[in-house]
C-alpha cells in the first residue's frame, strides 16, 4: 500500500499526523506530507485507512494499482 497527500487540498487540520505520526510529517504551517515515498508497512495499513477516513479535506489518497503481489 502506498499513500499520498495532495498539497493543494491539505489545509493543515493535522488529523493524519495525530492518528499515524509514523506515516506523516507536518510543517510549521500545519501542512502535511507523507514520510518517504508514502509506502505503508503492512502493520500500519489499518491506521493509514483511518487517516484517510478522518481527513476533512479528502486530501489523502491510496495510490491505486500498487498492491504487492500475493
Amino acid at each position, binding site marked *: 500500500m502506498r499513500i499520498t497527500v495532495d498539497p493543494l487540498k491539505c489545509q493543515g487540520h*493535522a488529523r493524519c499526523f495525530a492518528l499515524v505520526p509514523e506515516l506523516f510529517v507536518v510543517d510549521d504551517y500545519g501542512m502535511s506530507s507523507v514520510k518517504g515515498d508514502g509506502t505503508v508497512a503492512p502493520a500500519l495499513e489499518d491506521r493509514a485507512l483511518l487517516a484517510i477516513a478522518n481527513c*476533512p479535506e479528502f486530501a489523502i489518497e491510496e495510490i491505486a494499482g500498487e498492491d504487492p503481489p500475493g
Partner: protein
Amino acid sequence: MARTSPVTDWSVDFDVLDHDYVADPFDIWDDLRHRCPIAHSDRRGSTWLPTRYEDVTAIAHDVEHFSSLEVAVIPFDGEEPEEPILPYGLPPISADPPLHTWTRRLLLPWFSHTRVAGYEAMTRELCSSLIDGFAARGRADAAADYAQQIPVRVIAAILGVSDSHADMFTGWVRDVLEFADDPERRAGGVQGLINYFLEEIEHRRDRPGDDLLSMLLHSEVDGAPVEQSLVLGTAALVLIAGVDTTWSAIGSSLWHLATHPDDRKRLVAEPDLMPFAVEELLRAYSPVTMARVVTHDVEFAHCPMKAGDKILMNFPAANRDPEVFEDADKVVLDRAVNRHVAFGSGIHRCAGSNLARMELRVALEQWLRRVPEFHLDEGQEVTWAGGQVRGPRLLPVVFP
C-alpha cells in the same frame, strides 16, 4: 435575545438567537435538511443557512463567490465610524487572499503541534488548580468555574499578556460574540480590546518579548513592518477566537458527560479512547458558526443568492448530516470515520485547532481523573449561549 419574535417557519424566517434554537438546534436542522436544506431569513438582513455537509463545505471552498470580509453571524447595526480603527477587521479570519495568505502565515507557526505541546504542562496545572478550588465542595459550575477559566489563560500566555486580566478579557470577548445583538455592548467590547492592545503594543515597541504580540509588531513582510491596524486586529482575533470557542467545546463536552453516564463511565474506564472522544465531541457539539458574504449574484443549490447576502457557515449542522455520518445524532466515543468540520473547511481552517484540541483533551482528562462521577445539579438551570459560538454558560454539577 429577548428582542426577537417567535419563529413559525424555520425555512423562511429562521432566527439563530431564538431561545429554543440556542438550547437545542438539532431537531430544527434535521427538519431543514429534509425539506429545505438551505434556509433563508430576513431578520438580520438577507441571510442563508445551509444545513448539509456538502453545501457548507462547498461554500467554504468557493472563496470567489463567498468572501470572508464579513464573518460576524450577527451584523453590527450601530453606526460605523468614518475612519475605523480596524479597517481590515480581524485578519486573517476577516480577510480574503492575498491579505489572508500572509497574515495567516504569520500566525500559524505559533499554533503548530510543537508549539502547542509546549503549553500542555501549564494547561494541565491550570486545570488541576481550578479543580482544587471546588473539589471539596461536591459541586461546581463546570462552565463558569472550569471551562471558562482555561483557554483565556493559555491564550494570554501565548500573546504575552498578564493572565491577571483574564476576567476582563472574558468580558470583552463575551460582549463581542455573545452579546453581539446589543450594539452598545458589542462596541464597548471592541473598544476595550483595542485600548488594551494599543497599550501593550507600546510596551513592546522598544522591548519586544518572546510572545505573539511582539512577533506581530516586529515582523517584516516584503521589507516593510506590519501596519499597526493589522497587528491590532490580529491580536484581537487571537483573543476573541481563542477564548469562548474552546471554553464552549469544553463546556458542551462536560454537559454531555454529565447527562450521559454510560459515555462518562466508558471514558473513565478506557482513557485510550480520549483522542477519538475529543473528535466526536467536537463533531457533535461544534461550537462555531462563521459567516460569509456573497460577492456577486449566484445561484447556489437552487438558491438565488444576491451580492451582499450573508451565509451562515453552519459547521455544527454539517457535522450532524446523516448523509455523511452514520448515527449522526448519536455520540459514538470511538467513531472511526470522522471527517468533521468543527474547525471549518478550506483556507480558513481554524488556525488554533491544534491548541483547541490540546486544551479540550487536557481539560477532560484532568476533570475525569479528579471528578470521575458527576451529574447535573437537578435543582439548578443550565443556560446556553448561541449565535456565533454555542456552548453552556452555566453548568451546575454535583459529585460525590
